[in-house]
């Protein structure tokens, strides 16, 4: 993409994101992509968005229809039954082994309390059933230490186990693998370059630690500069940064909501949001994931019924959603949320942990992706861990609101503020993304990420895997319903040089265990091709190509 954002050639990764109904790819002769010619998509015309099972349709400004595909293919019924049988077998063997351990035929390898007669036991034996019998079999794919910067490739420390994953030994060697597990969307996890040099300079000036909270002597000029720059980046009035992303949610939602307020949160919201909502004392209602009709129904029911016993009106209603959901890979339907918010006068708190920097034409997140006005959402929240290669979180919005949070937030009062070197890293990255540093590096990374994500997804779908999520999101989960197969995929992929993350019950629903790939701008086409080749082999070996959708035979060009 050129410096002014115009498309330099005949392939535009952003336009390709929108498959137009008239079959063109949006270049319409004048070589301006749809988003540029439309400007910001008119809100009223978005009111006709349908929520179909396979595709959703928005009307662009010229009446040109834009499809966003958000397919969610369910695994076939016989697979689910086999999945239940597999869990039943694991449970039966679990009980058998526990029985053998009880009658001392088998050695108990777990930790056992000693000299505690008469004390209440610390842990119930039943509560560790799952860990002992199911998790223990597959835990060699978890908690693997790495010894380098988590960039496009990583050095993973080798581990050997002689007693079936109860203990590990480290021979001291490492294995190089392509990193498809780190949230390194824009590839800023680097240990050399101008960003790192600037951070080093700041380290020499300010040292490492901060030594106080924001309310005491812990506010540093770099943090203020970062907040101003961040507000500029996001297109809002003001922002505040915190040292930890999880804590940003869990300590600030109680500042905003209290008893008598209503929080309506998405089914698959992150644990930090749930923790914050619980701590706040507000009532919580849950709506089905990304289902705008359900959300509207819940809002209406709650407004009509009011608070629980008194039926008084709610003090405020806050809708909490995320930009990209990291386990599903779906992108929130932002135009519809804004429409609902304006209709019912609710507040919206948008957690852009995974989407800031990762989607959008200019990398500004979900509002940029849909072309919405950032001032429509009351509270933007995000973390710097994913696309920025740093740590910490932020909240952004109107100046009044941010000033209130700065005074009342528990994180600002009790937690140490963000370290100056990290603030410098974030600022350098923002400058790169905005193009302020004078290079086109930011735009190139954004374009590469978008291209990588779409290429990887389309090739995986073509291979026959069931891939969840929006076509543009860099988080690519593939469904592997059986936990044994998840383990097989993670282990085999690692021996062939790909590092991935698996997730199963109880973190996901019983039959939708998945393996997740995080595509990064630092992945080259060769790396993605290697990953796809490996997944193709594994898919045939382990039989996980469950998709029944017709596969396109067209050659997918990068």
């Amino acid at each position, binding site marked *: 993409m050129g410096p002014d954002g115009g498309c330099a050639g005949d392939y535009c990764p952003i336009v390709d994101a929108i498959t137009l109904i008239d079959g063109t790819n949006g270049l319409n002769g004048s070589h301006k992509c749809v988003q540029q010619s439309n400007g910001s998509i008119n809100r009223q015309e978005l009111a006709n968005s349908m929520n179909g099972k396979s595709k959703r349709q928005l009307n662009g400004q010229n009446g040109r229809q834009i499809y966003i595909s958000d397919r969610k293919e369910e695994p076939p019924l016989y697979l689910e*039954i086999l999945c*239940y049988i597999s869990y039943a077998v694991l449970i039966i063997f679990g009980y058998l082994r526990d029985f053998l351990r009880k009658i001392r035929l088998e050695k108990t390898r777990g930790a056992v309390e000693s000299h505690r007669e008469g004390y209440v036991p610390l842990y119930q034996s039943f509560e560790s059933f799952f860990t002992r019998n199911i998790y223990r079999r*597959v835990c060699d794919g978890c908690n693997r230490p790495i010894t380098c910067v988590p960039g496009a490739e990583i050095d993973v420390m080798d581990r050997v186990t002689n007693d079936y994953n109860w203990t590990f030994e480290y021979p001291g060697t490492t294995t190089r693998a392509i990193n498809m597990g780190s949230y390194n969307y824009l590839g800023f996890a680097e240990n050399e370059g101008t960003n790192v040099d600037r951070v080093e300079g700041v380290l020499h000036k300010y040292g490492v630690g901060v030594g106080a909270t924001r309310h005491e002597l812990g506010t540093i000029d770099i943090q203020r500069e970062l907040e101003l720059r961040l507000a500029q980046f996001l297109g809002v009035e003001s922002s505040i940064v915190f040292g930890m992303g999880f804590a940003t949610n869990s300590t600030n939602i109680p500042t905003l909501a209290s008893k008598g307020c209503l929080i309506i949160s998405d089914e698959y919201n992150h*644990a930090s949001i749930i*923790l914050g909502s619980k701590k706040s004392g507000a009532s919580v209602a849950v709506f089905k994931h990304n289902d705008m009709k359900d959300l509207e129904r819940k809002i209406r029911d709650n407004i009509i019924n009011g608070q629980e016993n008194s039926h008084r009106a709610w003090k405020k209603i806050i809708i909490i959603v995320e930009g990209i959901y990291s386990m599903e890979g779906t992108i929130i339907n932002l135009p519809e949320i804004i429409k609902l918010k304006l209709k019912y006068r609710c507040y919206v708190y948008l957690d852009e942990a995974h989407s800031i920097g990762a989607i959008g034409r200019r990398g500004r997140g979900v509002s940029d992706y849909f072309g919405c006005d950032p001032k429509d959402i009351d509270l933007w929240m995000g973390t710097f861990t994913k696309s920025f*290669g740093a740590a910490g979180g932020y909240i952004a919005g109107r100046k009044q609101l941010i000033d209130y949070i700065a005074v009342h937030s528990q994180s600002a009062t009790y937690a140490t503020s963000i370290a100056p070197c990290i603030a410098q890293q974030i600022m350098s990255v923002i400058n790169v993304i905005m193009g302020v540093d004078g290079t086109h590096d930011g735009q190139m990374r954004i374009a590469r990420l978008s291209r990588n994500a779409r290429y990887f997804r389309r090739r995986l779908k073509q291979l026959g895997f069931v891939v969840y999520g929006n076509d543009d999101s860099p988080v690519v989960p593939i469904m592997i319903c059986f936990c044994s197969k998840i383990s097989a995929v993670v282990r085999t992929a690692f021996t062939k040089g790909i590092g991935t993350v698996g997730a199963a019950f109880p973190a996901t*629903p019983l039959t939708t265990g998945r393996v997740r790939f995080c595509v990064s701008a630092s992945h080259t086409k060769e790396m993605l091709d290697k990953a796809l080749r490996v997944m193709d082999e594994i898919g045939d070996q382990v039989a996980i190509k469950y998709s029944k959708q017709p596969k396109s035979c067209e050659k997918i060009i990068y």
Partner: protein
Amino acid sequence: MCCRGGRRAMGVVLVWGMMLGGTPAQVNPNSLWLNSRGMWLSYACGVLVLHLALLSFPFLSVATVWTLTNVIHNLVMFVFLHVLKGTPWESGDQGKVRKLTHWEQIDDGIQFTSTRKFLTVVPIILFFLTSFYTKYDSFHFVVNFIALLLVLLPKLPQFHCVRLFGINKY
């Protein structure tokens, strides 16, 4: 949901991501898995497989096999739904459900949901079938009826969180 601890820094790469800070604290997974798609069909298939396995013993009469199926099914259901308490994993909600049996945890305690109705109806249907195939013989009837009562009484909403004589309280 995956390893939600990944919000801190980017060092953790290959994580199984089970409940390492990630179990959705709002929802107890134990309350939902019986509602999963295909679960009821699998349950019925499981009972059928048990019955066929018992039928393969040549020295048992049809009546005995049906009574045995009914009694074994009810005993297993009683143990798993009404005796075992808590969750087989460490829940993220500080043990709120540690004292509840699985039946009390289903759908977070809401009564008369479809899963609860299904699990109530299955022993009743099994009882009808067993009575038919044992030709209403009095001995089999008494045995089957007691087994049915054993598994139906704890399901009544009046027995929610009730522990008779302090048995199985902690």
